[in-house]
């Protein structure tokens, strides 16, 4: 009897002891060097950081994208092992702040144990967060209660919102990328906290992790898509409901604008009222019941991969209708999400440097960039979805820097202005700028700017003659990136 009891206790202890985290959680040491988006052939200063990660199936290490973004060199360390293993980024999803690292030296995984991915934790459950906060050499564990699950902004991109799980376990620098464990399974990746609050930490839930892992199965990360509409949660007002010819018991959201080039263009229009997405009924706050709780309707969309479809039920002019939308990236022409890793493209002609207007460029103004940037850039950034009616526009192009030379001495007033056209050809991308300056037959380059009443004039012949000398004088490797001959 005693033996039986002992065996039972031993069995229970083995079952609930959970995995040994020293065999799963790793320290990641990173050397970073981002690009300078105003003078894009340069890189900014080097910095070093520490993060956490953990091993998942397939000899891969899952971590946060913000740990490894703009990295130049990555080392992974196991607890209690002195050896440092160089690693490379296999996939990075900056919008969902997740990344997968690979280690060429397969011996790294000897004796290591991949963690299994679990489900969405319930509120009020106790979870454990593992990692290497503040650079310690041993794995740290903190316990916390799951206090809330909701859609929130992901700080890494600064623009994308997804589901987050809030806990009262502290998430400190270095913790990021570590697993959050419940019943021996990963229920999240620790990723951000709130500076102003005590002990509020956030983790990326498994719904997002699973989306990411499924996405990269085809060897490419595509990202999270959207429906391609702007919505208003205004059906709380009975008059509004009646004005839109909706039955009294209708609940849903109202379409206020349809994104240019989205799949919704052929299906939805302004003032349509969406009441259902797939099998999820929407309420007047734009919430659906999913994972057993009420979450934003974006959860129904985020559950899908790019290219998949959703069925929508909507009301228009008093009639119930159905349609199908393809989930697409639908990124704004003025990219508001921070970009990482890729060298920014540019054109540098006659000392005039042109770059794409995006958040990275705006952030070169410093911490207070949102209020310090020139008005026209703030205006385009905030309202690009409404202001841009050009279906062919890929981006806004800005004159970001002038490398002084005789030929551009008087062009300072045009700095940081977005381009409208060159020689009356609309500028919808950097490629249009390249194309315009390849022209060697015109007398002038007449560069017009959005919201500016005076053009910038370049003597075309002199500009071509001076171009190489200017590039050489200021150590610019090529007149354009991606590189090509002028």
């Amino acid at each position, binding site marked *: 009897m005693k033996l039986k009891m002992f065996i039972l206790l031993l069995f229970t202890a083995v079952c609930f002891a959970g995995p040994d985290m020293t065999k799963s959680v790793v320290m990641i040491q990173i050397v970073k060097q981002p690009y300078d988006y105003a003078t894009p052939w340069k890189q900014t200063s080097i910095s070093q950081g520490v993060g956490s990660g953990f091993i998942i199936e397939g000899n891969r290490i899952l971590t946060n994208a913000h740990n490894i973004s703009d990295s130049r060199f990555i080392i992974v360390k196991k607890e209690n092992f002195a050896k440092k293993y160089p690693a490379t980024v296999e996939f990075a999803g900056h919008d969902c702040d997740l990344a997968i690292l690979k280690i060429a030296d397969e011996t790294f995984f000897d004796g290591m144990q991949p963690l299994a991915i679990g489900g969405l934790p319930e509120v009020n459950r106790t979870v454990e967060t593992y990692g290497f906060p503040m650079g310690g050499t041993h794995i740290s564990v903190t316990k916390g209660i799951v206090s809330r699950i909701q859609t929130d902004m992901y700080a890494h991109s600064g623009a994308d919102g997804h589901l987050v799980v809030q806990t009262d376990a502290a998430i400190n620098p270095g913790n990021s990328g570590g697993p959050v464990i419940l019943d021996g399974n990963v229920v999240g990746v620790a990723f951000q906290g709130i500076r102003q609050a005590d002990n509020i930490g956030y983790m990326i839930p498994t719904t997002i992790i699973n989306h990411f892992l499924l996405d990269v199965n085809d060897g490419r990360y595509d990202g999270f898509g959207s429906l391609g509409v702007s919505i208003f*949660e205004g059906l709380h007002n009975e008059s509004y409901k009646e004005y839109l010819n909706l039955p009294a018991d209708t609940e849903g959201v109202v379409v206020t604008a349809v994104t240019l080039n989205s799949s919704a263009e052929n299906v939805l229009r302004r003032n349509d009222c969406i009441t259902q997405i797939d099998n999820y009924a929407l309420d007047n706050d734009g919430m659906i019941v999913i994972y057993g709780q009420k979450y934003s309707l974006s959860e129904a969309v985020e559950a899908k991969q790019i290219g998949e479809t959703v069925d929508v039920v909507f009301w228009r002019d008093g009639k119930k209708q159905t349609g199908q939308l393809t989930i697409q990236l639908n990124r704004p022409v003025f990219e508001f999400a921070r970009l990482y890793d890729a060298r920014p493209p540019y054109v540098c002609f006659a000392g005039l440097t042109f770059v794409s207007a995006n958040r990275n460029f705006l952030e070169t103004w410093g911490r207070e960039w949102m209020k310090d940037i020139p008005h026209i850039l703030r205006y385009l950034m905030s309202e690009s979805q409404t202001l841009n009616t050009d279906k062919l526009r890929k981006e806004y192009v800005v004159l970001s820097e002038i490398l002084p030379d005789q030929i551009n001495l008087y062009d300072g007033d045009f700095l940081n202005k977005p381009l409208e056209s060159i020689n009356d050809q609309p500028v919808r991308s950097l490629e249009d700028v390249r194309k315009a300056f390849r022209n060697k037959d015109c007398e002038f380059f007449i560069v017009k700017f959005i919201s500016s009443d005076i053009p910038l004039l370049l003597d075309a012949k002199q500009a071509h003659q001076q171009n190489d000398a200017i590039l050489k004088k200021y150590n610019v490797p090529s007149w354009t990136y991606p590189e090509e001959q002028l």
Partner: protein
Amino acid sequence: MKKTFIIILICVSSFSVFAKDISEKLKDSIVYLQITYHGYGQYTPWKTSELSEGFAVGCAVDGNKVITIASSVADAKLIQARTANQNDFIPAQILTVDYESNLALIELDSNSLTKPFKPLAFSEKYVKGAGVSFYWLSADGRMYNGRGFLDRVTVESTAVFCSQTLTFVAAGISETTNLGQLYCLEDRPVGIASLSGKEKEGNIIPAQIINRFLADARNGKYNGIAMKGFEASALVDPAMRKYLKIPNDVQTGVYVANVYTIGTGSDVLKSGDVLLGIDGYSINPYGRYEDRRFGTLAFDSLITGKTAGDAITFEVWRDGKKQILNAVAKRFNASDMLVPWYEFDTQPEYAIVGGCILQKLTKSYMAGRGEDWQGKVEPHLYNYLINEAFKPTDQRRDLVILSYCMPANINIGYQNLSQYVVDKINGMKICRMSDIPKALALNPDAKFIVIEFEMSQPAIVLDRSQLDYAANSIAQVYGIDKMMNIK
């Protein structure tokens, strides 16, 4: 003996750079103005702001009239004067105020004056580097003075006003001057203090502007100073001049970049013109001309030095040749602008419809966001200020915005909507504030009032039958005595 003579000479000449102290002489010409202000809140336009008080210096110019700076009397509810010889306050009222000249003519109650004023005549003299003295009267009737020297002449505006006017700058001043203090060169008044410049510098509204203002005000109908109706940019780049086909022997001209719908030149100039000269004065590529008395000045002074209604001549380079354009100098009030730069002495216009506060967009409204407001205000509103403010049209005289919704049953669902530009009400385009009552009265049998906005924003739909009840309830709950103030 020779050495002593030189020392005396040095002392005499050094003293000569300072004007004489003429405080006693000015005692009957300078008044202390005590001003009580009571403006309106920009975000609660039905409410007055807190009472405040200030003071200014007035200078006698004619009988019982004194001149001071307009910015000191903006939003004044009560003005009282005190002289050096009279302890009790003398009631005063504004006769003419011109915020563009930054001057105000104030009349003191002649029955309350125990001793007549000695009017001052302003001299248009300017001597660069000469010592100047300035004078003011304190609340307790004592005359004070300070000193500085005339450093330069510029063409400047204050932060609030639209026009750029001739300005003297006194440097090395012993006291801050920005409230109408009287500046004298030798023993002659040459201007009054308008605002503080850099440290130990004071801007002076010169006699040239004061005399023009007084002459205009004396006519009974004040015409005001002419104001620029266009923007010009430097035209220095040889490539640009070559592109515009300006011959090498023509070394003058600025590029007319933007022509307004109001102001001087707005009816004759075109965007893309090159402005070569005004009234026979050549304008250099940086937009400056050679003034016969003051040297190089910004060309704006050639316009703001005129009274509205005067003739003005523009010489332009247009279509590959020089042309002379004859025009009439024009002014406009800030209230004529699509987005007024300021709004003084009046309650902001507003209409509260179902708790939704509709009001006119003004610079003052945006500046209500506090420090760094330009970077905080919604960019689509700020865009109207910086790109469209001087371009009202017949289709749009005011920019009407939804400032916010005061929560009430009638506007549930709309309570987070704010800072939108109103496009239509009940299908009618809203051109000006006074369109609101007309639009609300449209389609009286329709069940709903519909307010539509720009920039793809959702509409606000209100049940017409609930409006009166909601208005009463909102007025009671939020303490609003008047739901609409439209002129």
